[in-house]
């Protein structure tokens, strides 16, 4: 009888220990709020970003033994008892005020442990204020206005490099062309590249891009012969396109979202513009719909980016994960969707380091975090938060950009041209034009 009681007690005790153990915690979920523009003009972009984040969560939560990065072996967050990442998406509609409301809702109603998003710098700016007020971490994967990391926020960390890097990349690229460093092209006299015309959409992102380009041009000896901001929800951009053409610029530089990028290129083609180079500041120029919609009209267009499927040649895991992404989304990763993948990857690493979902523990872990290059799908040296440029706080200092060129229509691909040492194809120069 006594042995029966003893056995019962042992069983009960075992069950109780089991219930309190990490194995039971594995059933728990860690909820992360994710704000994206899922409707409105930016809905196609939001969809691609969501797919990037969802793939990262899937790889963290399930085993992918063939992928050579640690999150693929975890099946949840190891130091949180295998807890699964659950992304709670909210639609910003592309509007700063609405994005901030969504951040409040996620924090108050969904009880998320932190927030990510929001693609547009203007929305990230307002939404991150709500996280700052609530004392919850906000990890931004993809907004590039330099001002965001110069606000001195305690609860804001940015994974992506910001515009200052990308603009430096552009001028390094132009200087490289004059020094004969570009693959397949002899040194180009600076006089043929000197005159620049800039068209930037008029939200915070475009305005910041324009300002940085103007500063770098002055420092590096280039001449801005035309520069203006325009509303990206424009019914017609003919006047703006004519303005670029009338400027006599050699190089056209754009900072647009998707719809206006398409409209600009279509209009310039219709007007028969013939610049020497056309370069876009990411965003609209790297959306899957950009090349798909414009077809051969996009041949030879350069874009600042952070990713190219061609990187598979130099980063094996990048190619493997992009293959999975393409099989699900129907198109390749682009710089923004790939950065959203990395954003969720950062969440996984930091939660594992923090061993807790307590905001202070996460913040502490974020400030100590170092993800090495081999863990990433991006051509970065890693993720480590610091002060890469004067005034930056909690900004990843190991990121970098690439410059791609759309080549080979039909079926055009983004070929890496810069950094020149990672070039996957010869540069098409001069721009073939639309005449």
């Amino acid at each position, binding site marked *: 009888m006594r042995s029966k009681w003893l056995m019962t007690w042992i069983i009960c005790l075992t069950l109780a220990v089991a219930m309190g153990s990490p194995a039971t915690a594995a059933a728990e979920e860690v909820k992360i709020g994710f704000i994206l523009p899922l409707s409105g*003009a930016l809905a196609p972009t939001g969809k691609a970003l969501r797919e990037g984040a969802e793939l990262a969560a899937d790889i963290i939560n399930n085993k992918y033994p063939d992928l050579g990065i640690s999150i693929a072996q975890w099946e949840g967050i190891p130091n949180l008892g295998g807890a699964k990442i659950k992304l709670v998406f909210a639609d910003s509609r592309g509007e700063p005020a609405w994005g901030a409301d969504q951040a409040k809702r996620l924090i108050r109603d969904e009880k998320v442990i932190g927030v990510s998003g929001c693609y547009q710098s203007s929305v990230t700016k307002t939404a991150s204020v709500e996280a700052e007020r609530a004392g919850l971490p906000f990890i931004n994967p993809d907004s590039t206005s330099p001002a965001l990391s110069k606000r001195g926020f305690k609860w804001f960390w940015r994974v992506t490099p910001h515009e200052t890097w990308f603009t430096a990349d552009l001028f390094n690229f132009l200087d490289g062309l004059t020094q004969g460093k570009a693959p397949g092209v002899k040194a180009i006299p600076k006089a043929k590249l000197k005159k620049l015309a800039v068209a930037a959409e008029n939200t915070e992102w475009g305005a910041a891009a324009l300002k940085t380009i103007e500063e770098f041009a002055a420092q590096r000896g280039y001449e801005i012969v035309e520069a203006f901001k325009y509303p990206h929800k424009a019914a017609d951009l003919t*006047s703006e396109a004519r*303005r670029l053409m009338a400027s006599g610029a050699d190089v056209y530089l754009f900072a647009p979202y998707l719809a206006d990028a398409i409209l600009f290129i279509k209009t310039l083609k219709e007007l028969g513009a013939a610049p020497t180079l056309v370069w876009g500041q990411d965003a609209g120029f790297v959306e899957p719909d950009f090349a798909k919609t414009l077809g051969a009209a996009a041949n030879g267009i350069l874009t600042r980016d952070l990713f190219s499927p061609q990187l598979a040649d130099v980063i094996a895991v990048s190619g493997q994960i992009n293959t999975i992404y393409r099989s699900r989304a129907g198109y390749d990763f682009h710089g923004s969707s790939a950065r959203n993948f990395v954003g969720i990857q950062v969440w996984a690493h930091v939660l594992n380091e923090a061993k807790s979902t307590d905001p202070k523990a996460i913040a502490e872990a974020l400030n100590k975090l170092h993800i090495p290059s081999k863990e990433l799908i991006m051509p970065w040296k890693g993720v480590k938060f610091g002060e890469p440029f004067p005034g930056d706080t909690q900004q990843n200092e190991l990121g970098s950009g690439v410059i791609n060129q759309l080549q080979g229509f039909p079926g055009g691909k983004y070929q890496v041209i810069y950094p020149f040492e990672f070039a996957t194809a010869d540069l098409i120069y001069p721009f073939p034009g639309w005449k």
Partner: protein
Amino acid sequence: MELATQIITYGVLMGFVFAFIALGLSLIFGVMNIVNFAHGEFLMVGMYVALLTSTYLPLDPLVSLPIAAAIGFVLGVFSYRFLITHILRGPMVAQLFGTFGLMLFLRYLVMFIFGPDVRTLSHGVLVGKNISLGWISLDASKVMAAGLCLLLFAFVYWMIYRTKLGRALRATSLDAEAARYMGIDTERMNGFAWGIGGATVGIAGGLLAHFYYITPTIGMLFVLIAFATVALGGFGSISGAFLAGIIVGLIQGVGGHYLSELKFTFIYIAYFLTVVFRPRGLFGW
């Protein structure tokens, strides 16, 4: 000089298109005193008709115009019969929210069917072609769109002011009760106004698709311009919509060249000033 000519020419061409888009909105308001918030979505449907016709049928998108007109007409009449007649019984605010609801329904129905992707017409007799007039080069599809808008605008104007049907429509617009006493079927006239409104903006959508991108959310952009155009020209005024369309086209063309960032601001300043100093608009009653 060449640049100025080109900017003004494009401004006027786009003005004809804006005027034609605003025509249906003005007509519906004139006859029924209802603001159709779904007007932009009717335009978007016209754009998708052009896209589908040129993608799935071996036809030039120009052929889609009568199809877009027919679908727009049916959409307008159905909206009237199955929505507007019901919400007319409610308070004013129900009428506002009714067409707003129709706008959301159409937008997200199209998004559900075709997805949020941005598309453009890839082929067509006039797609991507230019017309050179010696000193200026013009986009052929814009010239064609503006020309057809002008022609169809004139046709609708003639129909309203020169035909028996048009007189019945205007009588309904001026005093529906008196018109009923005179034997006019005002219900039919209301439905007809919605049908014409849908057909004209459907054609405008088919024309816009030749040089503009297509996405389920595109309607909002154009309906805002149409509201400003109608308010500027005078609610219910056909000739007012025409003149205001050209003014709006010129403002956004010239504004786009000199102060692109503020080009919509200039349009809405014109709208604001009209509302403040001449609430009935340039030609409204």
